[in-house]
């Protein structure tokens, strides 16, 4: 790629505010896995997140990690890819201002509330191709921290050093753009047309 855009943590608003939906970026620095229960603990249970995410990046992901033999509390990232981000929709609008996170990586779309928060606080949401957990894992250089391990392997907050993690496709930008919401309108319209085409052929009950 001619102009490979690489974001570095800590990310500043000016690094991302000109990015728009459909742009492709890469990440170098730190990223923390953070999904359902961690969001719930912060937002609904009022517990302090044990990781500093100011200017940081989170990955909606529950990875496969493996202990490194012969070392205490050391783990290797085996496979990691995004989970359905829409599950975090109910929390993200509060999560963004409370943590100062600047980059959220996940899969599928996020809704209006996240879109509003991304615009207000200058945060972006990007999609990493789901199901491509080895393409992703090879960019994870080292797991440097593990918090809330009581939640089990998928839900632990794993913080890792990554190098040029990507492709990350911008799906919610800081200007109110939302790739999936726009696509969804098209899909709905097409599905309605398809329905009209199919039904004359399936009137089996007569």
């Amino acid at each position, binding site marked *: 790629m001619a102009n490979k855009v690489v974001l570095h943590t800590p990310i500043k608003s000016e690094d991302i505010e000109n990015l728009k939906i*459909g742009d492709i970026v890469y990440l170098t620095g730190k990223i923390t896995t953070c999904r359902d229960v961690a969001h719930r603990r912060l937002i609904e249970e009022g517990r302090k997140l044990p990781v500093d995410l100011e200017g940081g990046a989170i990955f909606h992901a529950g990875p496969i990690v493996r202990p490194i033999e012969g070392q205490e509390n050391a783990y290797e990232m085996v496979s990691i890819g995004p989970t359905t981000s*829409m599950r975090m929709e109910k929390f993200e609008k509060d999560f963004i201002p409370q943590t100062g996170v600047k980059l959220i990586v996940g899969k599928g779309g996020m809704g209006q509330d996240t879109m509003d928060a991304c615009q207000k606080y200058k945060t972006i949401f990007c999609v990493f*191709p789901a199901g491509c957990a080895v393409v992703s894992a090879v960019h994870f250089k080292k797991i440097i921290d593990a918090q809330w391990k009581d939640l089990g*392997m998928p839900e632990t907050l794993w913080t890792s050093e990554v190098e040029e993690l990507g*492709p990350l496709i911008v799906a919610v930008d800081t200007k109110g753009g939302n790739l999936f919401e726009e696509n969804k309108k098209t899909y709905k319209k097409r599905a309605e047309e398809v*329905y009209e085409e*199919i039904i004359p052929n399936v009137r089996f009950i007569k």
Partner: protein
Amino acid sequence: MSKEAQVKQMTDIMAKFVGYTAKVLPDDVAAKLKELAEKENVPIAKLLYETYAKNQKLAKELNRPSCQDTGVLQYFVKCGTNFPLIGELEGLLKEATVQATFATPLRHNSVETFDEYNTGKNVGKGTPTVFWEIVPDSDTCEIDTYMAGGGCTLPGHAMVLMPGEGYEGVTKFVLERMYTYGPNACPPFLVGVGVATSVETAAVLSKKALMRPLGSHNPNPRAAEMEKLLEEGINKIGLGPQGMTGSASVLGVHIENTARHPSAIGVAVNIGCWNHRRGHIIFDKDLHYTITSHKGAEL
């Protein structure tokens, strides 16, 4: 061979097979993805298909699960009444799951409900799930293995329609699921539809439909026609890989059906993501096995 030795042998084979299916796609799915990638002309979709292919190559080379969500294991068993390990089968499949979890490694995907803790072994109350079909006077055992990931489990839906809604209602039910939940479910995916009486019968059929090889059709001509209409129709929606638009949406549409109560049409939909980790293995009475889903697989 003693019963104990037989159980150990089959457990080891199943553990290795499950691990293998986490890393390598079945032949039919790999071929279909290649075909869709070749036909694709939307730039973002082409990039995504390239990433898919790169991922599958890396997974095999580095010997790692191709997707981090290795699912809750499900086994669809077609077991002869004279298969020597019929009584031990359910227990050994559970043990094979634990073994595969540490050897592969697989993600820990069994959270005990109500107590809400992850067992850390990938097995728990009722997991892995074993679905049984008993075959009289046979001494072989066929097993479909499936890793049901969270992303493509989420769109699963079942309901009972009134007969007045007809197959038009079935069509509507399926299509609605495609544009609402589809983009998040890792398209191009396989769509399984169950048509029966009630939610549980339709739901089991919709998952069984995902075990059928790609390109197979329902033996009923009308059901087969509906599979084709839905496949073409859902492709026209143009979800593309990752739901980011493209020329196709699905790997296929499979319908499974039974007779129904005159007052009800039970319908269910289940989705299998593009990384459709299904395996099929057949054991004879001496535990010689044949793998039909992955040609040339070595365990």
